[in-house]
């Protein structure tokens, strides 16, 4: 079973909330769910939509076509009509020639609830249309809003009985398993980092990273994480560096514009060998771009971020589960190699809510190399073969750290030999990181086939589905720095394509640079993520 429905209205209509509540009804019944939201950078008016896909199989993306649109405004109908079979609409607000008329606003008025509560009536009707006991929905409301759920429940029941008398069922959806957890990519990344010992989170609000700030702020006590929203991104990055200097695991979250402001701090972390995890959730640029839409344009930016040369670890997850694991891995690796790491997210992954089977125990806080000698003998930047110097923190030792070039003790130097030796020590870590990544899943392969499609980040989801249909092999490049040359250079295949949401083909050019691979680029740069429906013909064209 695999079906899709949509909710659409204006900002302020509670479209996203309705999509997630609806998604939860199905995840409670044991289904896999994927909720994709579209919205604009405004608070009232405009056009918002939530696309909810339900399946018996794991989901990493939404589909365009589906059963039903729940229309909360008349002007959204033409936008979505061609993708759906039927429209359930608020008949107290407007009329349609055909469709399932539900007087949502009148119901809300009758229960003396604010107009936005009309969603509950729509979701009650949805339960009927899919043959689900409305009590499942009621319980979702109770769990979400507690005592305040009363009116939602009354409205859900009203919508349900109204629909039951008038509308035919679309499907019979039965309980098929135990409830599944439903969370977005940012939240999942946050939890992965917490498992790896995150204690401080610093972030300035910027879409599409903000949901993590909200999530960690609201759960800070149970997670034991200090959450601070400082005056700007520069401050966020420097605070994180301060906390890590003092021995505490810290992370910052931002999008491309905010990460641009963090460049000098990023470079400081490289020079001072401070482990900090940067979550960069991409959105379309340049500049403010399309603030609420999707892109994968910052790969080259992140790979070259910060002035000067220093090792960095960059990875990009493909789905909610991957975000959990990679966030945990990266925080551990940052500490192991004492250098900054970037979890390169993208809007589609950051803000899409999906069911996930998270193996919490797979991520643990891995201890870094700690100094065990006498405090007086401590050398923060001890030159070693691996480039890694043992860590110790005040008050146990006198710790000297600096953004200037330094000697082993951490005092400023401009001696040529000393500077070169310290530079080489830092750069040697890159080799050590590469050796470690060779033991990890630096790339992941899905399916088989002589022709291969390369991709990265959340595009992977749509690519996997389209490739399945066409019998293609998919290679998701998961670690991007150090680039997993060892994985791609000996890869055997006939023809190759590369799917990514940018104009220039940033991964495609890396494949060429590191693996001499000529992959035909399938780009997208209209702010929308790929869907399998759209990808199939484009892939077919390349491989015909």
């Amino acid at each position, binding site marked *: 079973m695999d079906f899709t429905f949509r909710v659409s209205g204006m900002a302020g209509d509670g479209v996203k909330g309705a999509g997630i509540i609806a998604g939860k009804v199905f995840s409670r019944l044991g289904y896999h769910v994927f909720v994709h939201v579209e919205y604009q950078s405004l608070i009232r008016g405009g056009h918002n939509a939530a696309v909810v896909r339900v399946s018996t199989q794991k989901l990493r993306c939404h589909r365009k076509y589906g059963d039903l649109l729940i229309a909360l405004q008349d002007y959204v109908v033409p936008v979505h009509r061609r993708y759906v079979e039927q429209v359930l609409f608020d008949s107290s607000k407007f009329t349609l020639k055909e469709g399932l008329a539900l007087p949502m606003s009148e119901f809300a008025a009758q229960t003396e609830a604010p107009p936005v509560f009309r969603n509950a009536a729509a979701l009650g009707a949805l339960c009927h249309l899919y043959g689900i006991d409305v009590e499942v929905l009621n319980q979702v409301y109770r769990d979400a809003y507690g005592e305040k759920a009363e009116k939602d429940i009354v409205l859900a029941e009203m919508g349900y009985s109204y629909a039951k008398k008038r509308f035919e069922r679309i499907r019979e959806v039965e309980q098929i398993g135990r409830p599944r957890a439903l969370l977005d990519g940012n939240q999942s990344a946050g939890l992965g980092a917490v498992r790896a010992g995150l204690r401080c989170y610093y972030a300035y609000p910027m879409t599409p990273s903000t949901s993590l700030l909200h999530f960690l702020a609201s759960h800070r006590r149970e997670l034991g994480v*200090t959450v601070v929203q*400082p*005056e700007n991104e520069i401050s966020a990055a420097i605070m994180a560096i301060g906390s890590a200097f003092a021995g505490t695991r810290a992370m910052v979250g931002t999008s491309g514009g905010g990460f641009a402001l963090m460049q000098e701090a990023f470079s400081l972390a490289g020079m001072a060998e401070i482990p900090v995890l940067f979550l960069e959730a991409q959105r379309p640029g340049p500049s403010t771009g399309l603030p609420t839409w999707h892109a994968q344009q910052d790969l080259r930016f992140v790979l070259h971020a910060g002035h000067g040369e220093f090792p960095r670890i960059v990875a990009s997850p493909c789905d909610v589960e991957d975000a959990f694991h990679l966030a945990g891995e990266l925080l551990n690796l940052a500490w192991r190699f004492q250098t900054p790491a970037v979890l390169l997210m993208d809007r589609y992954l950051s803000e899409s809510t999906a069911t996930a089977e998270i193996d919490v125990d797979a991520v643990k806080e891995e201890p870094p190399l700690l100094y065990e000698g006498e405090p007086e003998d401590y050398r923060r930047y001890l030159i070693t073969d691996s480039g890694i110097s043992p860590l110790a923190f005040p008050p146990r030792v006198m710790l000297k750290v600096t953004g200037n070039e330094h000697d082993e003790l951490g005092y400023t130097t401009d001696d040529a030999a000393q500077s070169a030796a310290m530079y080489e020590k830092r750069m040697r870590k890159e080799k050590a990181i590469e050796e470690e990544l060779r033991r990890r899943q630096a790339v992941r392969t899905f399916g088989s086939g002589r022709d291969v499609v390369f991709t990265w980040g959340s595009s992977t989801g749509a690519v996997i589905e389209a490739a399945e249909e066409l019998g293609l092999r998919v290679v998701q490049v998961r670690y991007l720095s150090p680039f997993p040359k060892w994985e791609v250079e000996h890869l055997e295949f006939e023809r190759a394509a590369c799917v990514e949401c940018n104009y220039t083909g940033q991964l495609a050019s890396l494949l060429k640079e590191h693996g001499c691979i000529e992959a035909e680029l399938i780009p997208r740069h209209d702010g929308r993520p790929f869907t399998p429906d759209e990808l199939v013909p484009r892939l077919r064209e390349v491989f015909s």
Partner: protein
Amino acid sequence: MRLATGARIVWCPGCGNFGILKAFTQAVEELSAEVELERFVLVSGVGCHGKIADYIALSSFHTIHGRVPPLLTGIKLANPGLIVVGFAGDGDMYNEGLVHLIHAARRNIDATLIVHNNSVYGLTTGQATATSPRGFRGRSTPEGNPEEPLNPIALMLASGASFVARCFAGDTAHLKQIVKRAILHRGFSFIDVLQPCVTFNNTWKLYKEKVRPIERPPESREEAIKLACSADSVLTGIFYSEERETCEEQVRIEARHASVKTLIEKLK
């Protein structure tokens, strides 16, 4: 000096920074009966002043230009048991990183910040900063600085700093006393130190003539602001001090075993 390191001091002979170094190390030595030296962490900005981190045998982080306050904040939030003291320059703090200064004061992180205010960019060889007087002939303002100088004391008072003082690098006995008070003060302590730069802005004579102690300490923030704005001589001493809840007391969450599994259950 017990707190000396092996590093060779590279300030110009006669630089006001020597007075700050001396007063600070004496203050720390006097405090060492009460506070373990291991708990001190110094943070310095970029400029001539920033080199001070190399000259004191205490933990330190010589950070990048303008970013001393957030670094102090991150360290304190990670480990409130540490005593954090920042050394910034006037260019560093009143130009490049001004926004952080204002917010650190509002936030009231328990930290001490000493600004080496020589009213010039020293290390970049003599350009006008936010505290250079109007008409100052620096190398980038050959016809005189066209901008009005900033009043750091008034700014910090208006920003809610809980301890605001001005000192003169030429009066190390007074500076030492104020530094001790600032370190012991619970909350954000700000000291603007008038620091002659013999090479690019030699104010020794001017300050020796003009510096006067505050006669009657102001009793309220409003009075302090008035005093900070009024003086024709340059007043030194504590303008204002109050106790209030610190940032870390309000926002820091104790580390605990994170219940990720329980939270994931709740997301079902």
